[in-house]
C-alpha cells in the first residue's frame, strides 16, 4: 500500500483547524464578556 501522506496531512490539518477554531471561539466569547 502507498504511503498516502496527503491523507495523513489532511487528518492532522483538520484536527489543528478544529482545535484552534474551538479555542479561538472560547477566547473571543471571554473577551466579549470582559467588555
Amino acid at each position, binding site marked *: *500500500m*502507498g*504511503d*498516502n*501522506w496527503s*491523507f*495523513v496531512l*489532511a*487528518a*492532522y490539518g*483538520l*484536527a489543528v483547524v*478544529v*482545535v484552534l477554531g*474551538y*479555542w479561538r471561539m*472560547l477566547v473571543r*466569547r*471571554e473577551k466579549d*464578556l470582559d467588555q
Partner: protein
Amino acid sequence: MVRVLGAVTVVALAAGLVAGLGLAPREATQGNVQRIMYLHVPSVWVAYLAFAVVFVASIAYLAKRAEAADQLAHASAEVGVLFTGLTIATGSIWGKPTWGTWWTWDARLTSVSILFVMYLGYLLLRGMIEDRERGARYAAVLGIVAAFNIPLVHFSVTWWRTLHQPPSLMKPGPGTMPPVIVATLLVNFVAFSLLYAYFVAKRVRLLRREAEATS
C-alpha cells in the same frame, strides 16, 4: 491555573505530534497512513471520557441541583461533540485509502454517528429551553440516557461483523501492538486528555461568567 494547564497541554500536544509523525515507525501493512491512528484513537477516548463525565455530572445535578454540576455536564458535552466529530472525520479520511471508501454503514460507524447526533441533540435541547432550571433538568435526563450508547459504540466491533477493526488497545488480554506504537499512543492519550481538561475548564469558567452576567 487554566493558563498553566494550557501551556502544559501545548507541550504535550507538540510531543504527541512529534511522536506520531516522526518517532513512531512506518507501519508495515498500511504504511504511513496508519499515523492517523495517533489522532483518531485519542479523539474517541476523549469523547468517551467527556460523555462519561456528562453522565456523572448529570446524576449529580439531579441529586443535588448544583449549578456547578450542570455547567460541568454542559461543557463536557460540548467538548465531547467536538471530539466525536473529529473522530468521525479522521476515521473517514483514514478509511478511504485503507478500505477504499469514505463511509460505510457498519455497526461502529453507525453507532458512533448516533452518539454524535444524540449529544448534538443534547446541546440543541439546552439552547432551545429558555428556563435555565428546566433546561438543565431535561438535559441531565438526556445526558444519562445517551451515555448508554457508549458501551454500544465500543463493543459494536465485537458484537457485530464490521469493516472497522476490533479494538487493539482498550481490550482485555495481552496487547498485540509493538511497544513503540503503544508508547506513541499513550503520549497522545495524555495530550488529548489534557486538552479535554483545558477546554472543559475554560468552557465552565465561561458558562459561570455568562450565568453571573444574566442573573
